[in-house]
């Protein structure tokens, strides 16, 4: 157990070090493009969006939940990229030829991605706060939001790693990534509530785990615990199933790639 911990902390430190060596990348990671969605998109649609439809005082407070979950989506889907490069340049083989527990590398990646994602979620909620969005459920609600984000992120990161282990080239990886992320966002309640969508889109959006995550995060920001709790309970169930499926697929891909 002490060995396992030694491995995981050394491997996690490596990801942290890498990020800190790339000053620019670190800046852009924290001040994410997602933030622009909140600041520009949120303010841009302030007048165009109907507050009756949104069921929110203004568009930016409606959008905050969507942007939080979009951040989780992007980080999660990109979570396997570094392992993909490790696989391609042989670093992964070097790591796997050492007497480490087979799951250490993957676990270190989960810890790192979840850590970065939580920080970003807090940055986004902080910026939203500057635009007057105060989470109705307070600090505890914020903690709950981070937790929901992590639950969604684990499954996404697992998908991303499974892809990293399965694809032939990193070109394939980025094509699939680009193909996945936008439909996931549009076919969810991130930008518009389901009730305001065309029928076929809202139908599809119901099967998007992202919708469930947003529908739980949104009342935590806008309404309060009584409204939020049923959604939170529901999203925990949905995410448990989602994570189980993704982790199963990820484990399979990992085992196939590692012989």
């Amino acid at each position, binding site marked *: 157990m002490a060995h396992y911990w030694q*491995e995981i902390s050394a491997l996690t*430190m*490596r990801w942290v070090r890498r990020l800190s060596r790339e000053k620019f990348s670190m800046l852009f990671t924290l001040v994410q493009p997602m933030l622009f969605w909140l600041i520009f998109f949120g303010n841009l649609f302030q007048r165009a969006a109907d507050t009756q439809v949104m069921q929110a005082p203004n568009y930016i407070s409606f959008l905050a939940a969507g942007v939080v979950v979009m951040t989780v989506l992007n980080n999660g889907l990109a979570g396997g990229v570094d392992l993909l490069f490790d696989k391609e*340049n042989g670093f992964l*083989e*070097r790591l796997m*030829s*050492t007497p480490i527990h087979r799951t250490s590398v993957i676990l270190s990646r989960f810890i790192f991605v979840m850590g970065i994602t939580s920080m970003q979620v807090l940055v986004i909620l902080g910026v939203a706060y500057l635009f007057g969005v105060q989470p109705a459920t307070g600090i505890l609600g914020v903690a709950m939001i981070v937790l929901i984000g992590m639950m969604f992120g684990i499954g996404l990161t697992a998908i991303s790693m499974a892809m990293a282990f399965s694809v032939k080239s990193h070109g394939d990886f980025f094509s699939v990534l680009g193909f996945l992320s936008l439909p996931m966002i549009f076919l969810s309640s991130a930008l518009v509530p389901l009730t305001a969508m065309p029928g076929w889109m809202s139908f599809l959006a119901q099967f998007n785990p992202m919708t469930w995550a947003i529908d739980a995060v949104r009342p935590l920001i806008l309404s309060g615990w009584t409204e939020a709790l049923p959604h939170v309970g529901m999203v925990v169930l949905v995410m448990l199933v989602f994570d189980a499926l993704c982790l199963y697929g990820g484990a399979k891909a990992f085992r196939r790639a590692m012989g």
Partner: protein
Amino acid sequence: MDRTIAIDVSHLSKTYDSYRAVDDLSFQVYAGEIFGLLGPNGAGKSTTLRTLITLLHPTSGAATVMGYDTVRDADKVRTLIGYVPQERAIDRFLTGREHLQLLGALYHLTKEEAAKRIAKLLTLVELEAHADRPAKTYSGGMKRKLDIACGLLPDPKVLFLDEPTLGLDVQSRLRIWEYVRMLKARGMTIVMTTNYLDEADQLCDRLAIIDGGKIKTLGSPVELKIALGGDIVSLTLKETDRIHSLESELKDRPAIKAVRATTKGLDIRVESPEKALPTILESANRLGCNIEFIQYNRPRLDDVFIAHTGRAITESIPESETA
């Protein structure tokens, strides 16, 4: 000869879909020797190596390292080996020292023990002055040295080198050879793959020539050359269109063991040049071939390779190894 066996490979096969990368391979590596796996790209060298370092499971057959099975006792094997991959498996953002510290933790060394070994290794590969710079500032030769230091960090019983000098300049190459010889002198067992004949000839105590997933021949470079039985006479002809008629003319003549056409002439393996030369010259004369240049060699490892695989190592083969 009774020597300790460090590695025992028995009837090893590895199949990808329908492609047999390694086909019923059996060989042994003795403790303390430098053993080479020589072959063109796609011959099955890397697949064999990656099985030995526990990264691939054989489709059938088995391999042991220091008596431990590479599948069943994989964890034990991993504590006994060091591995230097073929690609520059370097994280550009980490410094040389950080690479070694990371591996130190993965081999479960204490901080003090790791620091002691790292200092020694950095001196050995002459990287002390650059140890705290990110690896992206390193030259190709420096990266290779760091690779080797990483492979040596666990203080392994067996060191695996995958194409150790691929793409290096001559000086770095000679330096790496020096390290390998020094490690052998310390009693380490070394297994390396290479597609450089001179490297195999210079470094390896014994080598296996692998082609199409099978061992074509195995022995010390000297043995292999002697086993060819005969020296090589190389002809360069003025009229290259007559190469093939001269080839068929010389085949099956008593003093001549084998004939092989090259782009400019013929490589003729002979029992003894004294007996064969008159035959060769007389035949060439009769067919009206003007000989531009004639050369006589003791067999080289190139000739061994050609004799066993039917082609030169530089000639490409249709299938490339994918794993």
